[in-house]
C-alpha cells in the first residue's frame, strides 16, 4: 500500500493480541447492536425452534425442550462486518450438532430463519463439528433481546451477521440460497480473516 493518510497515527491498543484481530477490525469492550428492523419480542411459551427442509420430517423443539438439551458454555472472539471485534465473549447454548443428532439429510447448506423475517445462509459444514450453537445465554445471563434473545445462532468463525439474531430454525437445503444481507451485497460466506465483507471480496 503506497497511500498514507496525512497526519494519521492511529490509536493502537496494546491490551489485545494483534494475532486475534482480523484485518480492518478494531477491538471494543462494548457490545454494539446491528439490526435492520425493530427488535421482535416473542413470548417464550410461543417460541419454537425448527429443523426443516431436506429432512424426512421437520423437528421442532419448544423453549423448555431446548433448555432440557445438553448445553455448552464457550468463550469465543466475535467479529462484526461493521468493523468491531469483541474478544473472549461467553455464550451458553445448545450445539447445532446436538440438534442434528439423528437427523438424516442430503443437505449441503442451511438457511437460518428468524423472527422479523431475517435469514442468513451458511454451508452445513460451517454449523457442524462444534462450530455453531443456538445460544440463549450471554455472560451468565439470559441473552438480551437487542442482542438476539431469547436465542440466536452463534457461528463465531464468520462475520457476526451470520449469527442470526432471534433465530427460530434452520432450513436444510441442497442448494445455497442467499439470505437477507447476502441479497444486499454482503459476502456470501463472510470469513473475517479473509476480509470477506462484501460480494467480490
Amino acid at each position: 500500500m503506497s497511500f498514507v493518510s496525512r497526519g494519521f497515527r492511529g490509536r493502537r491498543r496494546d491490551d489485545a493480541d494483534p494475532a486475534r484481530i482480523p484485518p480492518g477490525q478494531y477491538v471494543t469492550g462494548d457490545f454494539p447492536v446491528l439490526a435492520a428492523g425493530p427488535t421482535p419480542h416473542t413470548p417464550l411459551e410461543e417460541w419454537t425452534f425448527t429443523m426443516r427442509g431436506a429432512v424426512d420430517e421437520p423437528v421442532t423443539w419448544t423453549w423448555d425442550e431446548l433448555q432440557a438439551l445438553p448445553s455448552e458454555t464457550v468463550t469465543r472472539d466475535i467479529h462484526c462486518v461493521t468493523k468491531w471485534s469483541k474478544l473472549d465473549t461467553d455464550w451458553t447454548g445448545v450445539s447445532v450438532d446436538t440438534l442434528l443428532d439423528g437427523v438424516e439429510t442430503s443437505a449441503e447448506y442451511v438457511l437460518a430463519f428468524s423472527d422479523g423475517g431475517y435469514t442468513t445462509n451458511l454451508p452445513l459444514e460451517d454449523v457442524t463439528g462444534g462450530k455453531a450453537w443456538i445460544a440463549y445465554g450471554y455472560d451468565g445471563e439470559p441473552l438480551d433481546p437487542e442482542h438476539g434473545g431469547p436465542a440466536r445462532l452463534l457461528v463465531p468463525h464468520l462475520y457476526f451477521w451470520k449469527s442470526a439474531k432471534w433465530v427460530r430454525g434452520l432450513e436444510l437445503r441442497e442448494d445455497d440460497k442467499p439470505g437477507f444481507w447476502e441479497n444486499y451485497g454482503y459476502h456470501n460466506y463472510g470469513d473475517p480473516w479473509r476480509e470477506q465483507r462484501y460480494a467480490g471480496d
Partner: protein
Amino acid sequence: MAGTAVRGRLIWQLGSVVELVDETPRVKSIVLELPDWAGHRAGQHVDVRLIAEDGYQAQRSYSIASAPEDGGVVLTVERLEDGEVSPYLVDELRAGDKLELRGPIGGFFVWDRSFGGPLLLIAGGSGVVPLRAILRHRAAARSDVPARLLYSSRTLEDVIYGDELNRLAADDEVDVRLTLTRRWPKDWNGHRGRVDNALLEEVAWSPDDKPLTYICGPTGFVEAVANGLVQLGHDPARIRTERFGATGAG
C-alpha cells in the same frame, strides 16, 4: 422491493477533499470528489480507511449525506471523544487531502422515489445524516409523498443541517419536528425531552396510513422508538432501522 443489483467488487478509491463544512462544534461535512464513483442510493454508507506511515490501518463506516442527484459524495462525521477515526476526520483532515473509501454499501436502509410513502424519518443526533440524503433525494426526484422528520438533538447548537431543515419546513416541503433533550432556549416552542410514545403518536401517522419509517441513531434511541411504534400498532415490516454504538452493557 428488489435487492440492489450487486455490482462487481467494491474497490478502494481515493477521493479528494474539496471542502470541509462546519455543521456544529462537533460535526463536519466532508465534500469529496471521487473520479470513479458509480453512484449511490439515498441512505447508503461507505467504508473509510485510514493508513498510517507504518502501515497501520483503521476502517469505519459513515453514512452518505448527499443525494444521488447531488453529484459526488458528502460525508457528515461527528467527532467521538474516544474515537480513533472520527477525530482525524473532524480535526485533522484539510481541503486538498486525499481520503480512501469504498462503497456504496447497504441496500436495505435506502429510500427511492418508487418506494412511496408516507415517509416517516426519525433521527437521534448524527442519525440524521442518511435521512438528510433521503430528504434531498425526495426533493431532487420531485417526489410528492408526504414526509415528516422527527429529529432529537441534545441542544439547538447540536442540530445538524439546521438551515436546510428550516428551509424545508418553511416551504412546507417537509413537516420537521425538533425535540431538544438536554437544554433549550427560553422561547423554544418545539418539543422538549426524549422521544416517547406520546410524541410518536402525535408525529407518526396512524398505523392505518402505513407510513414507511426509517429510524437512525444511537442504539438506545432506535430501540425505544422502534419498540414504541410497534406498541402503537405500526407494522414492523414497514420500519427500517440503523443503529450505532453499544447497548452500554459491558
